[in-house]
Each structure stands twice: as C-alpha cells, then as structure tokens.
C-alpha cells in the first residue's frame, strides 16, 4: 500500500565532524535499502536523501537541525533507521548498518 502523505522527523547532527563523506556514505547506503523517496531539508534547502553529492553539499556541521522526509510504503521504517543513525552520531568506528535496518524493520 502506497502512502502519499510524507512522514517527517527532525534530527540534530550530533557527531563532532558533521556530515562529512563517511557519515553521508552510510546514510545513503541505508536510505537506498528502502523504496520510499527520501529527502533531507536544511534551512529550507531540500535535497535527495539518496545522493551523496547532494547531502555533502548541505555542509551540515555538528548541531545542525535537519528534517528527514520520507514518502512511500516503507517511509516510517526508513525514518526509524535513518534517525537512529544520525542520533547515534554515526558511531563511526563500529556502526553496523545492517543491524540498524534490521532493528527498524522488526520493531
């Protein structure tokens, strides 16, 4: 069943180095596992949440507020996974992206 209403969550970038290449790579890898269309919004600027280039261009530093918007059949599950990732500060050394996806899909 396809939902046409976007789901929205707000998160704050918590890792000290901000959304640099590795966190963005992780974000996109997880986003790509969902069918939903995913977008990120920073200060009114809206970008494709499945494009590394687009997210890097936001230059989001620690403390930046981001809205993550998802639209599609697995929107809520996708948001659970992505919000967890950002809130955990991308746990850079030991992030287990599959674990995050599995947990959000089973909860």
């Amino acid at each position, binding site marked *: 069943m396809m939902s046409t209403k976007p789901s929205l969550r707000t998160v704050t970038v918590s890792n000290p180095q*901000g959304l640099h290449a590795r966190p963005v790579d992780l974000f996109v890898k997880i986003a790509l596992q969902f069918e939903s269309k995913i977008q990120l919004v920073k200060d009114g600027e809206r970008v494709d949440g499945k494009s590394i*280039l687009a997210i*890097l*261009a936001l*230059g989001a530093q620690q403390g930046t507020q981001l809205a993550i918007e998802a639209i599609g059949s697995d929107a809520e599950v996708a948001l659970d996974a992505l919000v967890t990732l950002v809130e955990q500060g991308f746990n850079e050394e030991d992030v287990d992206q599959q674990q995050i996806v599995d947990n959000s899909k089973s909860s």
Partner: protein
Amino acid sequence: MKFSDFVNNKAIKSQLTAEDKEGVIYEMVAALVEAEELPAEDTDSIIKAILKREELGSTGIGRGVAVPHTKHPSVDRLVGSVGISNDGVDFNSLDGDKVQLLFLLISPPDRPSDHLRALENISRQLRDDTFCRFLKQSKTVTDIRQLLEEADNNQFVS
C-alpha cells in the same frame, strides 16, 4: 570556501595516467609534493593514510567524482589538488560509475570544519551539470584553472 582557498594551481593534473585507484592517488600526492605543498619525506605516509581511509568506505561520491582525503600532521592548513582521468578509474563508488574527477584533500588533524567546508563547496559546484561536464572534458591545466575560477565567481551556482 572557494576552490582557490585549498586548490594549489601548480598541483593540478589534467591527464592522470595511472589506471587504478592507488596509482592516481600516488600521482596526485606526488604533484602536491612537487608543488612544495607537502614534504617529500612524508609521501609514503600520506599515501598510506589516504588508502587506509578508502578501506573504510570509498570516497567516490557519485557522478564520476571522488574525494580521496586524509588528515595528516605534515600540513598546517587544508591543501588540495584536482586531477582528471580521461578513461576513468574504478573507485568502488556507490553508484558504480568510474571516477574521472578527483579532488584530493589533506587537512591538519585539528581542523575538521575546513575539511567539511571544502567538501561542501566541491559537492555544491559539481551538482551543476555544466560545470561537472566541462571539468571532465578539460584537456589542459589552464582549462581547469579557468573553470575553478569561474566557479569561485559563482558563475555556475546561482
């Protein structure tokens, strides 16, 4: 941040000759050493650090672009270079495309925000199709310098 804030014009490579990731990274670091931006005795250690970072996840960010980088104590400000590979090299990018455009960045360990600003600038400019295409088609260092300068003057991004 602008390209002119971190790209050393003397280290720009318009025609990278290596055919693999390791080779093009070596060429670009060597160009920065030759431009006297990096100390020659740190060449191996810098290359090793960049390759180690690649093992954590490719810096291929899509659209045929890669941003190999590392922090290194041999620099006291962000230094970078641009390289173009006509045939493209395999970078294990997420989108599977070969990489033709490389932006190599070396930053001092204590300046993460400069690195983020440089990434932001590179990504923002490359989202413009015209700039991205022109840069990939550049055949000479002069062409590349001119395009970077035009980008710095906001001629591509509104």
